[in-house]
């Protein structure tokens, strides 16, 4: 039987990947950030998940303006790191789990979540930076990955409530899967940041801390926050935070917070990170 054991929330700032790939992790600017992930690396090395369902968004790399899927589930056997316009990140190929991914696709669609099925796509920093933060720089990723790409760059993204409900459906689907799997789900993006307009550089730490509190303790209330509040309080790109609700929806109503980390800035962004275990 497959089991969904834990959830991880993390930012996916591209500059973090660049810092890692160019050997800057010990520099004073970056050192505190990477220190905030040491707990998680050690914890994952003990937990040994077979597969991570990784909720992220593509940033105009796999998807152009031609087709903008709201929820796109990767069912492929592998995914190449994307060349985003400055060369692909020097990270391992991402191995998928087609058997579980297809089970999820079928279950979710029959559970009335009309997701898009993806058989081939490159994965950008939205997916590979969280992997680097969770696993460091191994020669191969230690587990399989099922990418779930959420549109958050063309308004409107799915609502927080819809993301939360999708997470609940993912939980049902995972638990209905016969073969053994230890599954971790990760929600990525955020926290507060804005990379456009005269208000570029916005950071709202009070909002971010409240978000982290509620993602643990009161996700039902959190899921009702309207898009305009995200944009106003957390910046135009802070709306990415709805993706954390997919992760949270897949966990128990009550969870144990194992680890939390918050750091400003990574480039233009407030970095948030949390590890939640079913209580």
């Amino acid at each position, binding site marked *: 039987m497959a089991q969904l054991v834990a959830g991880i929330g993390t930012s996916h700032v*591209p*500059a973090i990947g660049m810092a890692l790939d160019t050997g800057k992790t010990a520099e004073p*600017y970056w050192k505190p950030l990477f220190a905030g992930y040491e707990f998680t690396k050690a914890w994952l090395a003990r937990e040994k998940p077979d597969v991570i369902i990784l909720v992220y968004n593509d*940033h*105009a*790399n796999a998807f*152009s*303006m031609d087709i903008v899927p709201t929820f796109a589930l990767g069912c492929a056997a592998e995914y190449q790191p994307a*060349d*985003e*316009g*400055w060369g692909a990140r020097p990270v391992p190929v991402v191995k998928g789990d087609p058997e579980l991914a297809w089970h999820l696709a079928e279950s979710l669609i029959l559970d009335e979540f009309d997701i898009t099925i993806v058989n081939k796509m490159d994965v950008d920093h939205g997916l590979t930076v969280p992997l680097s933060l969770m696993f460091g720089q191994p020669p191969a990723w230690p587990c399989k990955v099922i990418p779930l790409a959420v549109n958050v*760059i*063309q*308004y*409107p993204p799915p609502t927080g409530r819809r993301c939360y409900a999708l997470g609940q459906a993912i939980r049902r689907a995972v638990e209905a899967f016969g073969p053994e799997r230890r599954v971790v789900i990760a929600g990525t993006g955020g926290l*507060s940041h*804005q*990379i*456009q*307009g*005269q*208000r*570029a*550089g*916005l*950071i*709202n*730490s*009070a*909002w971010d801390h409240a978000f982290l509190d509620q993602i643990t303790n009161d996700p039902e209330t959190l899921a009702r926050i309207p*898009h*305009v509040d995200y*944009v*106003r*309080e957390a*910046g*135009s790109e802070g709306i990415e935070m709805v993706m954390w609700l997919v992760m949270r929806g897949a966990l128990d109503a009550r969870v144990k917070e194992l680890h939390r980390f918050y750091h*400003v*800035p990574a*480039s*233009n962004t*407030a970095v948030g990170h949390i590890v939640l275990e079913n209580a």
Partner: protein
Amino acid sequence: MSQREFDDIPGTPLFDGGMAQKGYHFNTFFMSLMKSDNRAAFKAGEAAYMENYSLSAEQKQAVLARDWNGMTALGGNVFFMVKLAATDGIAVAQMCASMAGMAPADYMRMMVAGGRPIAGNRSRDQNKAA
């Protein structure tokens, strides 16, 4: 959605359906810069390269002037515009500084000091009332 509510947020573009309609060709142009051959062709002659895409005169001018706020107003999506910044060899933070009307060094200092505060940046109406 209430457009009015979003309009009340100062200095914050919203890439909605209207912007997507304006910006389809524009964003297709930006995305073409993911390929190194295209970047080389663009650098060899920006105006000539842009003739391959159905851009308006204003869009072409905004690119030539590296008027980043102008690009978003004309339908550019910031994640697509990042391809142009990368072609220019500038960091996203530098593009942000330009949009915020700040020198890059001042912008970086602001970020390291905790970023642009939300107080005073939440609402045009509140700012007027204050």
